[in-house]
């Protein structure tokens, strides 16, 4: 039994069957990659996992509890953090403030009207945020406006913000899309380090095979809304069905 269990999930948009009978099991503390050609339904599946979309059929269980029908913030409180294809950070805030927000948001996300106390008096939270920035090698950028950073730095910050919440499952949606090669390799190293050092499960949606094969312990191939195979990376590489799904499309 994995930490994330997807059973028979189907989703239809008008006349398009985006997902049908998707079954997926993500083992705890593994790195699970979901790959597939364009239009295979990867992003739709991810949106079903985080509460942005509600599937028409099937169930999604996280740690034995259903996530269906819960708002994104409630699903995050269950311990799922998400990294977006284009980094979603607080562009108008400084890097330090970006990191402070998830540090203030405790896991239960309870609303606190701390309108009179000063941010600078919250020593514990400040320390936690500074520590996380150092871990992400961004301490020198702490007073920069987040929007002014490079794509790679924004991605690093976003991952750091997710990690500061100590999630049990980290979902990444094409984390290296649109990145320069050096930034891609940095991101791969960062993710490797995270999965080695932390008690965390990572599910990653990716296009770039280089990223997938350097990270994943387990791979699910999605094609036309259904899983084609789920196997270990070395078996996926030689699998003729996978070749067909990819090459057939490009030929």
């Amino acid at each position, binding site marked *: 039994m994995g930490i994330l269990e997807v059973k028979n999930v189907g989703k239809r948009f008008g006349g398009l069957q985006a997902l049908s009978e998707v079954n997926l099991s993500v083992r705890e503390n593994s790195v699970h990659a979901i790959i597939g050609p364009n239009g295979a339904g990867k992003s739709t599946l991810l949106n079903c996992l*985080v509460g942005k979309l509600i599937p028409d059929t099937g169930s999604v269980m996280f740690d034995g509890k259903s996530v269906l029908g819960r*708002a*994104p*913030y*409630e699903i*995050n*409180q269950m311990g799922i*953090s*998400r990294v*977006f294809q284009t980094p*979603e*950070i*607080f*562009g*108008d*805030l400084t890097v330090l*403030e970006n990191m*402070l*927000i*998830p540090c*203030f*948001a405790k*896991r*239960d*996300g309870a*609303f*606190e*009207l*701390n*309108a*009179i*106390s*000063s*941010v*600078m*008096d*919250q020593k514990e*939270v400040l320390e936690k945020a500074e520590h996380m920035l150092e871990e992400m090698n961004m301490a020198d950028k702490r*007073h920069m*406006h987040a929007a002014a950073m490079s794509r790679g730095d924004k991605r690093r910050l976003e991952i750091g*913000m997710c990690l500061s*919440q100590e999630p049990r499952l980290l979902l990444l949606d094409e984390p290296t899309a649109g990145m320069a090669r050096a930034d891609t390799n940095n991101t791969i190293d960062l993710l490797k380090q995270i999965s080695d050092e932390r008690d965390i499960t990572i599910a990653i949606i990716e296009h770039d095979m280089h990223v997938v094969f350097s990270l994943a312990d387990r791979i699910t191939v999605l094609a036309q809304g259904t899983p084609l195979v789920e196997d270990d990376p070395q078996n996926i590489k030689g699998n003729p069905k996978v070749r067909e799904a990819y090459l057939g499309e490009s030929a």
Partner: protein
Amino acid sequence: MKSLTKNDLTLLVAVAFLTLFAPFILNPFPEGSAMAQFNAGYPDLMQRFVIFGIFAIGFNILFGLTGYLSFGHAAFLGVGSYAAVWMFKLLSMNVIPAIILSVIVAGLFSLLIGFVSLRRSGIYFSILTLAFAQMMFALAYSVLTPITGGETGLQLALDDPRILGSSQTPEGNIPVPGLFGMEMRDSFDLELGSWVFTFNIGYYFCALVLIASFYLAIRIFRSPFGMMLRAVKSNQQRMNYTGLNTRPYTLAAFVISGMYAGLAGGLMASMDPLAGAERMQWTASGEVVLMTILGGAGTLIGPVLGAGFIKYFENIFSKINATILHEWFAFLPDGLEDFIVAILYPFIGKGWHLTLGILFMMVVIFLPGGLVEGGQRIRSWLQARKSKNGRPNGTTEPAE
């Protein structure tokens, strides 16, 4: 003043200085001189400066921090005014209970309206708040006449109960609002040479409330709550995926800014104990939006500057008429004088809206950050000039 940074403290001291010395600052021209009509240091106008300053500070907590643009904030100001006048009618002429009730009633109304309106964001939120405010205006104007006085407005009467005070003064007049014996309308004139400075109790009461409101706004801006509100403006998606429900934050900001509006309404009624429905009309709501944007939305001092700017224009520019213009340009040959007066005439008197509109457009186009951005540009220009003339300054200031 624990945990205020040096910059914030400077700002607070500046606001305190400006408000406390306003009778001097706003009366720079001697009495009877040609420029005397540009003096704004009379109690009625100074009171309006600070009351609308408070209103705009509160509006900025919602609009400047969260980015939610409410087009119905005057409704809370109106509700606050009605609440205060009812307190004067029923309880006593002391302004403290009246203002407390204004703030509470405005808070309750904003809780209700905010709860419904904040289900939507962007333009839909604005339209919802506008709809609520117009409904409240229409109700106050017609069906709720027993409570609001309808078209004539809510006024004090000689037979009001005033259970803790007196219904009438010994002379048989309606008592005036006061604070433990000090009457709000009492003034004291100081004559220095040909200058006359007026110190009004009501004004100083409002000024102290403004300083307290401004201090509270600084605290809110610098608090974790304020940071959350800025995060809501910046990226709601990330808030949601950080396990934070944005609704309680935006609702709290809405209620706080509604209470500021109620406070302003209560003060308005304390200065002049009557309340009319026109205070709730959409033009009044639009005015506070203009003040905030003109001064600089999201900055601390901006809304106060914007409020002062607009109220000054409204009261001073609208008083200039054709005769005054002719006096000014009397030194020119007749034809030229008439020509210049004809050109300037649409911008003065009743046409002051045109001047204000043009200024507003210029600010939005050239200074999107409002008057505050203008000030910052002048400062950096001066600094650049100074470092060019004097010793070269290699260090750069960190961006704030």
